[in-house]
């Protein structure tokens, strides 16, 4: 996989773009389809960023309304998802900037960690592998939540939104090198955090 390849700017009509064209010509069901397609990823990204379900719901709603009202500005040379994630990213970053103290004060991971650690040792005796894996996974994702915002946002864009490095760079307006380095750094932090609890040993 070439990560530094230049982005092809030719207009290719993918599924999304066909749907957008239909929406612009007044077909409402196409917008529903777009919503259904992106709802999960957008909601989960926002939820992990703001860490409050009510706010995440509101922001996701705002996002879709914004997308719809701004759709006439969408440039078909770009991938729709990148354009949409960029709007989503800006919306969330704006929100966090305006409500910084609120978002930061929602740190509830320590209690979760203890709780999980106890369950973890209980599972070890049972030797339930699949369950264990799920537990490690959910623990890892909890740890992602507690990363500093500048790392967390990139990790979420990469793994929740499933973007490539160059797409993340477009969404966040950060240089691609910075994006890669921060994600590596974030994964280093994650690995060390999880290693502490010996969760990656098995």
């Amino acid at each position, binding site marked *: 996989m070439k990560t530094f390849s230049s982005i092809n700017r030719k207009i290719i009509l993918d599924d999304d773009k066909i749907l957008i064209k239909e929406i612009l010509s007044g077909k409402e069901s196409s917008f529903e389809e777009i919503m259904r397609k992106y*709802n999960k990823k957008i909601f989960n990204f926002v939820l992990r960023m703001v860490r409050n379900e009510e706010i995440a719901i509101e922001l996701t709603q705002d996002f879709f309304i914004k997308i719809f009202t701004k759709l006439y500005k969408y440039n078909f040379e770009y991938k729709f998802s990148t354009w949409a994630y960029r709007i989503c990213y800006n919306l969330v970053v704006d929100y966090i900037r305006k409500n910084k103290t609120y978002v930061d004060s929602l740190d509830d991971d320590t209690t979760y960690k203890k709780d999980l650690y106890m369950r973890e040792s209980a599972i070890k005796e049972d030797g339930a592998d699949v369950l264990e894996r799920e537990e490690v996974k959910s623990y890892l994702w909890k740890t992602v939540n507690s990363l500093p915002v500048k790392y967390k946002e990139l990790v979420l864009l990469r793994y929740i939104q499933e973007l490539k490095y160059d797409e993340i760079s477009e969404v966040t307006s950060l240089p691609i090198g910075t994006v890669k380095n921060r994600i590596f750094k974030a994964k280093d932090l994650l690995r060390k955090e999880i290693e502490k609890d010996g969760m990656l040993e098995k």
Partner: protein
Amino acid sequence: MECLKNKKIQEYVDRSLNRVESSIIRDHLIVCGKCRAKYDQYKKMEKLLINPVYKEPPAKIEKFVLNRLFSKIPTYSSIFALISLSFILLVSWIYVYFDFDNNSIIQAFKLTSNSAFNWITSIITFISNVFSSVYAIFKVLNKLFMIIFNVNIGTQLFGLIILSIFTSAFYFVLRIVYKKLKEHN
């Protein structure tokens, strides 16, 4: 050979290295247990990250957005309010316009309703009674208008002007209420 940097191992996991670089790393991983352990950890982590724990978004998100953007169906209460208020305004307009307060038919209805029970006559009597009082208010307002501005435009015309103003105000308010209703659903 010295140990690999974390970044290099991660790039190897990512497959973002060129062939020469990856083969160097591969060779090192074979001989160095320490780096291989790290590589395994990154690899495991990558697997866990690639399949994230998604939370199902609540259905109300879609509902809210679609309602906000495409809702064309007004609520029953707003339709009812529209019809009844339009009816009241129409009746008042007709009443004032034809000067029913001094109309002989209405007077006749008023008289007959006293002797024989008939729901139509009682309704008409009720309406005419209400509007007679409204008409009286118009008369007073018209007199007031006459005193202040020194112009007499007649109670009837005065009443019509006031009613027209009310009608347009009513439709404006209705529009605003309707928009608000749409936002809330």
